[in-house]
């Protein structure tokens, strides 16, 4: 082993909802997401911790119920344990549900891993009248057992010291040997001997474990075995088939059932004789169950769900208004400062139109996103989000999706905010590839945190009276579109039956303040980072695309002539004064106001002409051939093109486009006021644009993820083309329909 002296690799394994991620946060203080939702930590997460001069690298494995190859999480966890061979494994178990949690422990021990058991939520177990003799359990299992309360970090130090001493011992792996009864044991021994003799896969797995996996018909191990040694693998498969057929005939059961039965038998024996004492009051309904009686009630549940989701909007909008105003004012004064300091020219244009406007419009929405993430983190950490999935499964099934699709939708922005990138990744909890693909392709329809500010801006400009209500409607619309399109995809491209719904509803918990802050900050920081790097870069790139190549000599000359014509109307002595008015500081004498207005008009037309001639303008103008049917002019087209890179940029591009159309001597008007004052805009056009942005091609980052998750380029490409077509169609219906009915014109 390399680098043994400095770093110790330790894995954290456990069931979903046993407090694994909470413990991980308590130890490493890592900025990462803790959900109360099974399977949210699909990604491998690492953290570091230093103890007694020893650097611990802690890996948070996805929460799993077993180590079969049933789900992606289980495979990820198993592969890591087998391939990376951590020096020690912390197996965190929920003390109030010990029996089921030990099912995973038994499998870890059968693999021979050096396990340390963290008996978590020992306080909750005691409240439920469950008493556990940790010392006796440790003696019987022959692994260290440490009681912990991850929420408050209790037992953390002792756990780490124990784990470190296990890791330092560095003993060879010793697989646990369980008897599987007269039907399985003989053949298991036979297979084990065969494997041992042939050294079949023994570099990765213990012999008996491989034999068990053959009996369980584990696809991954079977594939590996066939690759390694076809002859041995076939012999093992034949033995396994014989047992399976025999068991079907005599007992009408499968090897898996017998294996599971004996594992639970082993666990039951382990907990007998006072190790686990359960007082009779355990059967009563606890607060969590009482809450569920109301919150998942067939009639009140959905009603309350809508009220809760609506409250998220109210909370987000009402509390973020003030900080947003501060930030807007800050950037406006910064803009004003640059206006006075910098000389007129391309640099000034870059700084004000490219950088300050671009970053300002993005940073201005940070408070909004922060409050929203806070609300979402609260729903997740309390456990309510899992109830939402449970309640919506019936609805989702009708659209050919799965209750777990809710998670992907919500993370993608089903509750306004979020991001399609983690949303697309959240589809890994879906087992069936058809449902998964359908979710993957429709999740980007949700209103991610990047589209959100664009909508907020347009709504502020054209529907100022009904801000929150409008936003709520937009969200409902995106859900409706996603579901309808999903149904369409599932009944055309991806036809097939649905997979069963299986979800644990974690008990309601009061989220810790620290946990909420970590989640909120982590997601907000991601947004800021994006705003600071990619968005700024693209904002400048698009400024360049819009500023170059500029007008040619002849046209510039024509505007110069027009200016001269205006100037010729005033006295020669005042002409210099008029020229400097454009710089912004001079008071305008009343008698010149008309001439000044005319000059400004010329400037405006010149800037507009330059923009139209720019690279971006030309592309946007070309696209007008199609987009005029939905009411978009080239400026909107340019903004939409830029949104392809990241949706946040739509605002800054529109902002750049519109502030460049002015002479710049007016007070900096925020984009939303600028648009609402523009004669080319009306509520119908704004609404059409909202719908278009909601549905059209996902951003590059999302497309990349779709390709990665689906494993095929065609699905990434498909999402770009298909989504844009859907967006065009929907916008066309709304815009042309609206024009006919004279709505919002």
């Amino acid at each position, binding site marked *: 082993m390399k680098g043994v002296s400095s770093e110790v690799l330790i894995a954290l394994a456990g069931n979903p*909802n046993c407090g694994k991620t909470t413990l991980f946060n308590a130890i490493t203080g890592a900025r990462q997401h803790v959900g109360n939702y099974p399977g949210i930590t699909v990604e491998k997460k690492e953290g570091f911790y230093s103890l007694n001069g020893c650097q611990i690298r802690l890996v948070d494995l996805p929460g799993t*119920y*077993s180590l*079969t190859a*049933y789900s992606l999480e289980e495979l990820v966890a198993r592969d890591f344990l087998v391939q990376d061979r951590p020096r020690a494994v912390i197996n965190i178990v*929920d003390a*109030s*549900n010990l*029996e*089921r949690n030990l*099912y*995973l422990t038994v499998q870890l021990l059968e693999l021979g891993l050096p396990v340390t058991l963290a008996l978590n939520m020992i306080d909750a177990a005691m409240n*439920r009248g469950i008493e556990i003799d940790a010392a006796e359990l440790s003696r019987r299992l022959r692994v260290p057992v440490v009681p912990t309360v991850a929420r408050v970090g209790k037992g953390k130090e002792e756990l780490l010291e124990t784990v470190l001493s296990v890791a330092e011992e560095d003993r060879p792996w010793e697989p646990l040997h369980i008897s599987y009864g007269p039907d399985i044991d003989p053949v298991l021994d036979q297979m084990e001997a065969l494997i041992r003799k042939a050294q079949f896969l023994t570099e990765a797995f213990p012999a008996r474990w491989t034999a068990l996996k053959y009996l*369980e*018909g584990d696809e991954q191990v079977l594939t590996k075995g066939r690759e390694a040694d076809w002859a041995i693998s076939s012999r093992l498969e034949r033995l396994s088939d014989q047992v399976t057929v025999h068991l079907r005939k005599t007992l009408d059961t*499968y*090897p*898996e*059932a017998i294996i*599971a*039965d004996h*594992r*639970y038998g082993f666990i039951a024996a382990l907990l007998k004789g006072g190790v686990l004492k359960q007082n009779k009051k*355990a059967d009563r309904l606890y607060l*969590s*169950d009482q809450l*569920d*009686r109301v919150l*998942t*009630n*067939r*009639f*009140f549940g959905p009603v309350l769900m809508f009220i809760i989701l609506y409250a998220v909007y109210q909370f987000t909008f009402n509390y973020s208004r003030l900080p947003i105003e501060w930030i807007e004012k800050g950037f406006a004064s910064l803009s004003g400062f640059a206006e006075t300091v910098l000389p007129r020219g391309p640099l000034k244009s870059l700084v004000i139109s490219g950088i300050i406007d671009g970053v300002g419009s993005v940073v201005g929405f940070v408070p909004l996103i922060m409050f929203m993430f806070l609300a979402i983190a609260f729903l997740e950490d309390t456990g309510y989000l899992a109830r939402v999935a*449970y*309640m919506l*499964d*019936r609805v989702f*099934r009708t659209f050919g999706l799965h*209750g777990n699709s809710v998670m992907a939708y919500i993370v993608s922005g089903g509750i306004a905010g979020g991001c399609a990138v983690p949303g697309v990744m959240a589809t890994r909890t879906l087992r069936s590839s058809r449902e998964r693909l359908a979710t993957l392709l429709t999740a980007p329809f949700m209103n991610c945190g990047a589209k959100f500010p664009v909508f907020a801006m347009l709504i502020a400009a054209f529907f100022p009276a009904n801000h929150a209500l409008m936003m709520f409607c937009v969200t409902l619309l995106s859900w409706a579109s996603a579901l309808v399109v999903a149904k369409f995809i599932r009944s055309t491209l991806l036809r097939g039956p*649905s*997979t*069963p*719904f*299986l*979800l*644990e*509803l*974690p*008990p309601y918990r009061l989220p810790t303040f620290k946990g909420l802050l970590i989640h909120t900050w982590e997601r907000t920081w991601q947004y800021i980072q994006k705003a600071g790097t990619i968005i700024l870069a693209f904002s400048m790139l698009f400024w360049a695309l819009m500023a170059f190549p500029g007008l040619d000599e002849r046209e510039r000359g024509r505007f110069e002539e027009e200016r001269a014509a205006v100037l010729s109307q005033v006295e020669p002595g005042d002409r210099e004064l008029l020229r400097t008015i454009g710089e912004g500081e001079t008071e305008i004498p009343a008698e010149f106001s008309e001439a000044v207005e005319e000059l400004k008009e010329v400037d405006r037309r010149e800037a507009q002409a330059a923009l139209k001639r720019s690279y971006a303008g030309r592309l946007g103008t070309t696209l007008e051939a199609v987009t005029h049917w939905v009411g978009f002019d080239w400026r909107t087209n340019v903004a939409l093109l830029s949104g392809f890179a990241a949706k946040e940029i739509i605002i800054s591009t529109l902002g750049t486009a519109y502030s460049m159309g002015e002479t710049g001597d007016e007070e900096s008007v925020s984009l939303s006021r600028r648009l609402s004052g523009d004669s080319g805009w009306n509520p119908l056009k704004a609404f059409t644009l909202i719908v278009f942005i909601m549905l059209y091609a996902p951003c590059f980052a999302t497309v990349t993820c779709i390709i990665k998750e689906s494993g095929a380029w065609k699905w990434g490409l498909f999402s770009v083309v298909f989504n844009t077509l859907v967006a065009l169609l929907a916008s066309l219906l709304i815009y042309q329909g609206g024009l006919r009915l004279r709505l919002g014109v």
Partner: protein
Amino acid sequence: MFGCFGKRGGRCWRGLNRPNCGVLPLSRAPQGCRIRVEGIDGGRQLCARMAALGIYPGVEMELLCASCGSPCLIKLRGSTLSLGAGVSEKILVTAA
């Protein structure tokens, strides 16, 4: 019918005698009763999957909310599980 938790402790297995009241799929079991798993009538994978979740023959649990087309809710040793119709119709149960 009003609410999932409405009829706790009501008449379970109506019309059936208690000792051998017959085996029903979980999807058709009456709600609010204690039930015992008799078997899992599914493929190999479902068996293994259910076992990992703690549902195997002999286990007792409580049906908090019957399915009626949507997932049902069961209470099993302190944890609440929701099972879709596709799963619950394959779990055979009897009154505990």
